[in-house]
């Protein structure tokens, strides 16, 4: 009975750690539910256990100025500094702000490209979570338009 309680407690703590994103990268991490449910830039980063982020020229976010369709918006994020633990992509005005989290290992460059959905014109953020605990970001406003007939 006690062992069962201890196991349950252990699982709860693990889940809390995982949800807060403090579970070590590389180990088979549970999906960061809380972070992915968060609304808004600040709340999503807090749920990932990040400190108050600072804007930095060493983080780059590339994307188009205007997206013909919000369903597919190409974005790329990178950090020029060493010691990057994670690169995170966020779309501020999306119903769920956090789009993707990439764990950076020594084996890969701290740069990723993907395509995200944008519900409307919004600021898009690339955040580098550093080994020393810093959070550095770059942002860009990407306009989303309503196109024509689809031809």
């Amino acid at each position, binding site marked *: 009975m006690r062992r069962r309680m201890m196991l349950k407690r252990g699982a709860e703590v693990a889940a809390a750690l995982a949800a807060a994103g403090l579970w070590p990268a590389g180990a088979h991490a549970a999906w960061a539910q809380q972070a992915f449910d968060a609304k808004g830039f600040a709340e999503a980063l807090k749920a990932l256990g990040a400190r108050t982020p600072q804007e930095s020229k060493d983080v780059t976010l590339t994307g188009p100025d205007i997206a013909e369709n919000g369903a597919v918006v190409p974005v790329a994020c990178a950090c020029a500094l060493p010691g990057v633990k994670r690169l995170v992509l966020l779309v501020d005005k999306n119903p769920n702000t956090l789009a993707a989290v990439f764990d950076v290992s020594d084996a890969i460059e701290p*740069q990723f490209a993907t395509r995200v959905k944008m519900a409307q014109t919004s600021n898009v953020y690339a955040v580098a979570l550093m080994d020393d605990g810093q959070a550095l970001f770059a942002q860009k406003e990407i306009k989303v338009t309503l196109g024509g007939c689809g031809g």
Partner: protein
Amino acid sequence: MADPMRIRAQAQGDKAVVRVLMSHEMETGQRKDSAGKTIPAWFIQEVTASLNGSPVLTAQWGTAVSKNPFMQFTIRGAKAGDKVSVSWVDNRGDKRTDEATVA
């Protein structure tokens, strides 16, 4: 099993640029069908990649990643002939692994 991914791995000096196209609906869970019922969320949650069997990348995705997702990343210390493997797991527990050789 889900449809195969398209993986292209191109050697560039001592690195390999890997581009992946995955076949997945990436349903957000916000849409409603013609009857007015919400279509449940169905999306890739975790992506991993390895070089010659050693893990190099882990990523967590939410519903905001586009349908038929595209991902590009760069592996250090890779050369032509190396094997790149990419795997994904979705929120239903479906998974897919595909492999490509660095060209």
